């Protein structure tokens, strides 16, 4: 307990620990929320530099919300006119050696639909859904990262799933 009272983000080991535990979550949070176009990597770096500049004023406990807010604001400054596009990996034929070209085309088509459908979700829905499906995070973890209730997370993910299904299946 004493240790947490005395530690300071300015101390390198504390700073490094925060980076290692949070940077990837922030990176994915930004990707899922705003897409890949604006290089979320850079924003993560910038947010951490800002944390370093303010390390005397931010306690380790406050660092998480400081970083998410800062990174988010940096994105917002740039995002206004951009459309959300999440890159997906190319469907690799080698995994489907016995599939015919027609099947591959359908799959590619599906991914394009998926991409567009994701873009139509609200930011909150998209972030929660992808954190769950892509990162494999439990509802509870997502609730902690986003600072909302678990019920809220469940609602968002479920709504996202239904919207995606209806959109892609064309119902």
């Amino acid at each position, binding site marked *: 307990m004493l240790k947490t009272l005395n530690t300071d983000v300015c101390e390198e080991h504390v700073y490094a620990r925060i980076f290692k535990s949070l940077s990837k979550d922030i990176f994915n949070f930004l990707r899922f929320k705003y897409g890949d176009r604006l290089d979320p990597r850079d924003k993560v770096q910038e947010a951490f530099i800002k944390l370093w500049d303010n390390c005397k004023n931010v306690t380790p406990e406050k660092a998480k919300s400081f970083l998410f807010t800062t990174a988010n604001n940096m994105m917002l400054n740039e995002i206004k006119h951009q459309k959300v596009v999440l890159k997906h990996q190319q469907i690799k034929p080698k995994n489907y050696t016995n599939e015919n070209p027609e099947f591959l085309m359908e799959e590619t088509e599906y991914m394009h639909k998926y991409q567009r459908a994701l873009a139509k979700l609200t930011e909150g829905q998209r972030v929660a859904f992808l954190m769950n499906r892509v990162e494999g995070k439990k*509802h509870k973890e997502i609730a902690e990262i986003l600072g909302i209730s678990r019920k809220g997370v*469940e609602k968002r993910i*479920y709504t996202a799933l239904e919207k995606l299904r209806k959109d892609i299946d064309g119902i």
Partner: protein
Amino acid sequence: MQKEILIQKWLDGELNAEEMEAFKALPEYASYAKLSEKALYFKDESYDVDLEFNKLNDIISRKRQQKTETSTKKPVQWLNPLMRVAAILVVGMLVYFAPIYGDTTTIKTLASNKTAIELPDNSHVNLNAASSIQFKKGNWEEKRQVNLVGEAFFNVAEGSQFDVVTWLGKVSVLGTQFNVKQRVNYFEVSCYEGVVSVTYKDRVIKLPAGKTFKLIDGEIIEGETNEKSPSWSSKNISSFKSVPYSQVIHEFERQYDVKIETQNVDTTQLFTGSFTQKNKELALKAITLPLQLKYKQNTNKITLTKE
């Protein structure tokens, strides 16, 4: 509703075997399963925490270096006095002309330097040696406020309230001419035109033209002046009226950028008189003869002794 709970449990990986069967029996099962499977294609595996951390470390260590470089002042022999004056002028002009540097403008003078400043509303300020003022250009229209450390003579254009804030007290006027001198344990306001009000520790003192207000070691002394403007600004003379001798010495140090030491001299005795800012020898005589002191000069150090 049952379906929603089932799906939410599936999403959180909490389904037991029986529930799993029920979930698989849903007509939309195939769609959900595909959505879930294909979601993995949106994963970005390329984010490498260690690599990113190394990049960040580079940036921060560079930043730190810059900081230590600027904060550790190296002894700079090449900086002769002329260069210093030039540097001050350049910095002063940069600060004055470039509002990009932020809203707050700061103007400083070093020992044995004086400067004249024009504020955004054409008010004039003469800044005595070793003093600084600070003001905000951005909201000057709404709030005419200047922070002062040291001594300055103000000629304020008519308009809204004009405040001079020092850590010893505040001086407020509407439009007039006055001098404010704030030094260690010393605060003096002289009004030359109009009326100024001085706020000191919740007390407000109105000062009409020709009156002075002095605060020496916490004691308030009111006096008079016959001048039209402070002699330091108009005639290059520093003058004193019943001022502790230590203040006179400090003023001399500021005007000539020297250090003065005293031996067996009572620096609390009051001094009335003046010295020129143009001739060091003459000035030294002016402050030593009346008190029957002797002076010895070394480079940049003067010793005063009782005869």
